[in-house]
């Protein structure tokens, strides 16, 4: 077939400009967080002479690999504040970005399988309500009513003893979210530069004044790091350390099925979470592979384990097939909370450590990080997440509430 027989190419959502020799700010990493940050820098702070540098293709990192769970039912006040702000932004973003990325508020259930789980869950529901986050405790029969394919019988290893439920939580189309931000960035004058890897930084004393890339040196007043799994590598280039370990995190999908699963179900205890994508695939994930890894793949027993858990909870999945599995590189912290703020290098800012659960935070990360870059000071929502907390001891320990933290 020759090209003139093909239908016309649809309009491009963004241009692919050559990098300029200098910008007012450079964002390193063209995933969801980098794009959202650039969008809010342009929209809220009028900074349009900026660039997003992405070493691969736009949103080809964790942004293209996550299982898209969006929720805000975190335990601690600091987390509830920023994730709930994110959820409120998700509720208005399709209109604001003029792009329907299929944000579906089908609810998220977190199952309890032990007495300890039950106590922790009920406590979290209480904490959520006090923070204005919608949350309910469900007894097993209510769980069954909401999600009829769940096995709530007593004859499994870890019977379902109840669940927390956040009705406003849900899923969205991750790649479309990235494209929605990218199109708006482009309209606002932001340069999105793909295949542009940052390989070093130029400093004047302790102040960053430029970035070295495989496409030449770019001068800039400010640098914002949004490199997720590669944050430590970039920090090391800049001359400081981050309390982060990069791990593989895997997920899988089945072939397409007719709609059977109306909500999102997560289980920390048996270690699996499942939703059904708009097209019909069952989407599953679990925890990270235990070892450090930058390979974008993990070990198969992790997949096997999560499928065993899924089949016990959802007996009808026994006849589904794995269509594909994949992995991303997630930047985990010891308190399972992100890091946002200033760094030991002047005019260099970092947004990282979102680990296994940063998709849901994308809009709030972008909004608050843009504020930090533009003003040089923390936003009230990201202030508690500064790097200093590892020194002061004011950790935001979400492990209890979010062992499978997606």
């Amino acid at each position: 077939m020759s090209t003139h027989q093909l239908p016309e190419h649809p309009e491009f959502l963004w241009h692919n400009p050559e990098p300029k020799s200098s910008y007012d700010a450079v964002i390193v990493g063209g995933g969801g967080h980098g794009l959202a940050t650039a969008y809010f820098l342009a929209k809220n702070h009028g900074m349009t002479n900026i660039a997003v540098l992405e070493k691969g293709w736009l949103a080809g990192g964790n942004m293209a690999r996550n299982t898209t769970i969006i929720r805000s039912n975190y335990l601690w006040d600091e987390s509830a504040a920023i994730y709930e702000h994110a959820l409120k932004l998700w509720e208005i973003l399709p209109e604001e970005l003029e792009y329907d990325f299929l944000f579906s508020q089908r609810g998220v259930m977190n199952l309890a399988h032990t007495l300890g789980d039950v106590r922790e869950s009920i406590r979290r529901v209480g904490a959520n309500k006090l923070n204005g986050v919608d949350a309910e405790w469900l007894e097993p029969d209510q769980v069954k009513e909401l999600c009829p394919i769940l096995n709530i019988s007593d004859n499994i290893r870890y019977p379902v003893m109840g669940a927390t439920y956040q009705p406003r939580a849900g899923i969205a189309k991750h790649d479309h979210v990235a494209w929605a931000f990218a199109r708006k960035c482009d309209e606002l004058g932001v340069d999105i530069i793909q295949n542009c890897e940052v390989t070093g930084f130029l400093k004047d004393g302790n102040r960053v004044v430029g970035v070295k890339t495989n496409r030449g040196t770019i001068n800039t007043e400010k640098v914002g790091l949004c490199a997720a799994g590669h944050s430590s590598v970039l920090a090391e280039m800049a001359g400081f350390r981050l309390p982060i370990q990069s791990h593989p995190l895997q997920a899988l999908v089945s072939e397409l099925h007719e709609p059977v699963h109306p909500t999102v179900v997560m289980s920390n205890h048996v270690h699996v979470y499942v939703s059904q994508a708009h097209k019909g695939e069952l989407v599953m994930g679990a925890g990270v592979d235990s070892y450090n890894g930058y390979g974008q793949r993990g070990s198969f027993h992790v997949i096997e384990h999560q499928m065993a858990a899924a089949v016990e909870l959802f007996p009808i999945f026994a006849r589904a097939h794995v269509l594909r599995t994949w992995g991303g590189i997630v930047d985990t912290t010891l308190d399972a909370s992100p890091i946002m703020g200033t760094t030991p290098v002047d005019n260099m800012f970092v947004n990282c450590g979102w680990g296994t659960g940063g998709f849901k935070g994308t809009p709030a990360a972008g909004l608050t990080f843009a504020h930090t870059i533009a003003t040089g000071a923390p936003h009230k929502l990201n202030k508690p997440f500064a790097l200093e907390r590892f020194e002061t001891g004011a950790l935001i320990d979400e492990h209890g509430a979010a062992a499978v933290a997606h």
Partner: protein
Amino acid sequence: MLLISCPNCGSRDETEFHYGGQAHVPYPENPNELNDREWAEYLFYRDNTKGTFAERWLHSTGCRQWFNMLRDTVTYDIQAVYPMGAPRPSTAVPAAPESGTASLAADSTTTGTTAPSTSATSTAPGITKSGTTAPEGATK
């Protein structure tokens, strides 16, 4: 899945092991003299090397002994297994480029970070070069 060669038991599946993170992180010599920054470093900061990484593993469902390992965190190839307490062996194996990215640059910034208290030059006795036991790629 990694196939890990325990110094005591031989090659076993990764599922028998427990990961222990970065090796060669000594307990502070004079804990009373540490300031908050130094405590933070000891408690929360670990190297996050892209490339050859010295790390601890526990053979938890076998001999229940700890040992150290050099592993490439991009290819996951196991380059050496050596006893606790032995210095980090030297390796000349360069980090392979990450698959699926446009990057060809060797990570000069992330390799060569020797852990404190070891000299990277001497080779410890009892080192198993895993090339003989681990299959290519070491993961499935």
